[in-house]
């Protein structure tokens, strides 16, 4: 709340967010995803981990558990507790963010947890805790959904039994049009942001939020577009997990070969 701060990087609003040919600020069409890359098992210590790049987003997720829960009176007799922390490193954004969790980060940690819970068989691990940590190393719009995409892969990598993967993407409204996968300039200067997560195979929505103003029809259009994007992301998730599995297989075989 201090306007005396002089910003050293300016992100000015471009004159148009969508041009006459329907191209967006980064050249994408309204229903086009940004380039996405997923790597599995990037951290040695975690039971499962994944790294996601989506546009300039760089996000890492790690899973520890199931493990004993301290203090014990917080344990649940009939299922595991899922703990989730979404966090942005201070240099992930234009203006340095305090390392302490903001109200925004606390809310997002909650909705991300609630977006993943429906996919997990938490009842298989009573009295335990599964810890999920999401670190945003660079933020470029859509970090919560990219974080869910990463987290879901990390949970699978940790061998936590799941009903389905959870894939997520944000849709939104930019110059009156519903578009897929907002980048940060669209997020900042557009008219609305609607993050969606689904279990794609089960057709179940596990996260839905929105700001901005929408007619009921626009919401329907947005959700359909989101589903389209989610299906693509789902494929990339599965690819990444398969790749890890194949690598693992090769390593194991090589190990045997050695002997």
């Amino acid at each position: 709340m201090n306007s005396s701060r002089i910003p050293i990087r300016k992100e000015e609003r471009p004159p148009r967010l969508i041009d006459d040919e329907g191209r967006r600020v980064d050249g994408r069409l309204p229903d086009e995803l940004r380039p996405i890359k997923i790597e599995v098992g990037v951290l040695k210590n975690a039971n499962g981990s994944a790294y996601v790049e989506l546009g300039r987003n760089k996000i890492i997720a790690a899973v520890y558990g199931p493990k004993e829960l301290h203090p014990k009176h917080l344990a649940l007799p009939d299922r595991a507790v899922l703990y989730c922390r979404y966090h942005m490193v201070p240099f992930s954004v234009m203006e340095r963010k305090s390392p302490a969790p903001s109200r925004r980060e606390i809310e997002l940690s909650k909705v991300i947890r609630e977006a993943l819970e429906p996919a997990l068989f938490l009842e298989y691990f009573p009295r335990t805790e599964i810890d999920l940590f999401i670190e945003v190393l660079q933020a470029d719009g859509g970090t919560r959904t990219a974080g869910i995409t990463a987290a879901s892969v990390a949970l699978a990598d940790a061998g936590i039994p799941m009903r389905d993967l959870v894939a997520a993407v944000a849709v939104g409204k930019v110059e009156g049009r519903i578009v897929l996968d907002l980048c940060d300039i669209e997020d900042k200067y557009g008219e609305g942001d609607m993050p969606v997560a689904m279990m794609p195979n089960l057709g179940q929505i596990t996260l839905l939020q929105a700001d901005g103003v929408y007619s009921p029809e626009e919401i329907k259009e947005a959700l359909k577009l989101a589903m389209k994007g989610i299906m693509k992301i789902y494929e990339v998730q599965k690819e990444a997990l398969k790749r890890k599995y194949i690598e693992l297989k090769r390593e194991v075989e090589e190990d045997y070969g050695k002997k």
Partner: protein
Amino acid sequence: MARSSEEIISSLDKAKIISLLKRGVRLDERRLDEVRPITVETGVVQKAEGSALVKLGNTISIAGVKAEIGTPFSDTPNEGVLIVNAEFLPLASPSFEPGPPDENAIEVARVVDRGIRSSRAVSLEDLAIIPGKKVWIIYVDVYVLNHDGNMIDASSLATIAALLDTKIPKVKVIDGENIEILDEWVPLPVRDRPVSVTIAKINDTLIVDPGLEEENIMDCRLTLTVNEKGEICAIQKGIGGSLTLEEVYRAIDLAEKAAKKIREALPPLPNLENVEWVVREEKEEKE
């Protein structure tokens, strides 16, 4: 993170609620799409710039507005600042603990804030006094006094009612630099009355405005905030659990209808014609 003691409900109660819902009936005999009785009382705290006490059944929220003059955010130098803070007082429920707002209270505050911000309910550009330097800072503090379910809608309603009740003094800016607070009080520039409606999903049934026992067993909730035009201006899914696309569409229908009903409990929008929040005066040039 862990469910609080109150939420551990016997499977008997759960079975009972579900079997009633299957017959389209609720524990308290409401219809599935029926909101509990609402009362909105404004002006309850005279030392606040605006205030409202809302009862949604037995859920009670009180909101108060305080206004100060301060510095704008660096990325919106020409706008006033609106800050919504929600707290669950320990006197409201045996499951609330004293302490700073937890994730649940923060979620309520942020959902309420989102509905007001998206609908541009308060026109913040009217609250700039000296652009880039001095603007109105509007604090809304919402406190839940008794928790009987659906704190989001009760808090959202209390917030917008308190904003509608708010008067701030007109401000004179002399030579673009000096501020004088006048003794003429004007309404806050409130231009929309967004209403949030929470729908709970219990075992594939959607119900409007869940009570506490319903919340304790719901699979998930979806909050839709609806503006005066019937547009959706904020959405928040909460609690683990999931929804199909069709369920989302049905929830939107339910919310649209309920919002109209709920809005009737609110005071009307203020008449802002010819209202000025800032008057500017240039003193004669010094020679």
